[in-house]
């Protein structure tokens, strides 16, 4: 029975991803931390799938597709931002200031 340990690992990885998002200022690294969180969720899905049926794995499949699309668009956005501001440091990007 690996469900319990897998969920613990999933939780730790997710918290690490959040920590990374909170700590880092480089947009690309933050992005990678988001991917880390997605993977933590995937791990939980797979762990549950072992017990409750294959639907969890199929959901992971969709998560991966979404992650791929997100990576493509997200990185394109970062490229576009970099082209305008010559930085990917999020502290210097505050055009949405109210």
């Amino acid at each position, binding site marked *: 029975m690996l469900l319990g340990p897998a969920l613990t690992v999933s939780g730790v990885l997710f918290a690490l991803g*959040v920590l990374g998002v*909170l700590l880092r*200022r480089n947009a690309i690294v933050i992005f990678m931390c988001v991917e880390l969180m997605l993977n933590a969720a995937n791990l939980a899905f797979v762990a549950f799938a072992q017990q409750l049926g294959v639907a969890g794995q199929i959901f992971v499949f969709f998560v991966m597709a979404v992650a791929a699309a997100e990576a493509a668009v997200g990185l394109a956005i970062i490229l576009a931002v970099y082209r305008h501001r010559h930085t990917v440091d*999020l502290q210097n*990007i*505050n055009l949405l200031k*109210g």
Partner: protein
Amino acid sequence: MIPLPPLPLALLWVVPALPLAGFVVNGALALAAPRAKRAVSITGVGALVLAFAAAALAVVELAQLHPSAPLVFRYWEWLPVGDLQVALALQLDQLSAVMILVVTGVGALIHVFSVGYMHDDPGYARYFAYLNLFVFFMLTLVLGASFPVMFVGWEGVGLCSYLLIGFWFTEKINADAGKKAFIVNRIGDFGFLVAMLLIFRHTGSLDFGVVFPKASAAFAVGGPVVTAITLFLFLGCTGKSAQIPLYIWLPDAMQGPTPVSALIHAATMVTAGVYLVARCGALFALSPVASATVAGVGALTALFAATIALKQWDIKRVLAYSTVSQLGYMFLGVGTGAYAAGIFHLTTHAFFKALLFLGSGSVIHAMHRAYHATHAHEDAQDMRNMGGLARYMPWTAALMWIATLAIAGIPPLAGFFSKDEILGAAFARGAVRPAWYVFWGMGLAAALLTAFYMTRLMLYTFHGPNRTGDREREQLHEAPPVMTGPLVALGALTVLGGALNIPPLFGGGARLEHWLAPVTDAAFTPAPDASPATEWVLVVSAVLVAAVGMVGAFRLLKPEALAPARLAPPERGLGRLLWKKWYVDELYDAIVVRPVLWLSREVLWKIVDMRLVDGLLVNGTAAASRALGWVGSRLQTGEVGVYVVLFVVGVLAVLGAVVR
């Protein structure tokens, strides 16, 4: 079960539909081709003539059937709401038959007259569109088979009255007169509405065919409910038919074109109140208080308006107050329970008052053209600027004399019979209820004044020296045949109209009374018949009074001494009081208009609207939104890091809620 009516009756809807079609066509012409006067005339007059023909056919059919109950034609369901079932239905009975003949007949003559009178007006098409629309609504009013349908017509004629009084709306005084008429009528309409709601509350229906047969079972005689209903209905009548205390709009309504005054403000619309009381006779019969109120207000109005008419100089205003006064007679009649007499006077009055108005229109038309030709800016309606017009307008003068004799009550003209019948009925009622002796006395006094002021009008207008002006005098001419034609027709009706209902006293058959019997019998409260001797005394006294009025006017008034309007000295004493119309307008202004204006300006506008609505609600909302937005904008730092922190805090909160 009433057998299926023959063809012309089934086509009853055509009667109101024709003027409506005329309105649509003329309205379209007014917008698209306002100069197509020939098409407008053919449409406008044609619609009325055809409507009169259709109405006549329907009435002929009705006369052959002579049913004891109204013929009701339901066309479609209009307001099927729970217990309230209102159909768009028309009904024809002996009473509405008289009314549609008067409306379409007199209406057609006045339309013809208008062709000449309004010929040079730029709003010609618009005028005929309104006039057709008015006739449509008036026919809806008299043909409606239920209170709501009647109310549609009631409101519709009010609207057309407003539109036509303010027809020359570019001058403020005309627009104001229109507004005054409309607003005063609203007060009356409120009464009508309340009465309708009360009727529905207590009988569960608004159809005439249900309410009236039920009335005697649903209401106790003299009970508070039926008294309230009838008094509220009568409030509606005082608005529409210009009785005390709501008569004030009618004299101002003379700002409209003169044929409009003849059609709407003399012959038809203002008689709607009389029609309403006659229609609801079954209700009024149950309330002695309301009947006495109707008769009393009618008698008082007849006398009061007649006094004002004594000192007016505007020819149309004299006629306006005369109309108010004559309407008072009609209410005296229907309030007495003599519905046939009231409707009879309504009919004859439609003839001779329309004739008087159209005659005055002919005079004004001539005066206006004369002043227009010389570019003088004098009042074309002031009798002090007239005088001696009989020399220039013999037809008009002769016909107006006929109408004057009729309204004064000189036999054997129409007005004599109808007025005499009302006074006779009132006197007879006095034997049961002495108050009616007072009403009769007031009516008789009003008859004296009527004879006096009408003779005064004729003397100052058509006799004595001419005061129009030397250059203008050459421009005075008789009106064209298209205008004198209707005058002649109305003159004939004025002479012969009395034959409709010659009382048995003079060997007549009282035909109108018998004709109306199916409608009025239900409501009729028989008065003790006066002996023939008493009746003869009454008749002779009425004629004597009229004769005294006329002779007195001839003896007392000196047309030779009159000065033109711009040179006339101010009035003094009682004359000034009458000339100023007993200062009633000023009184209403002080006790109603000014307080309402003050309330509107100082409280509703400056406090409620400016402070409460604008200040607190509108600006307050804006300020609150702005403050909230300012707080929100502080949160929008543009720093993604801050957003992430807030986001995670939110996630924690949600998770916390789930975990717990």
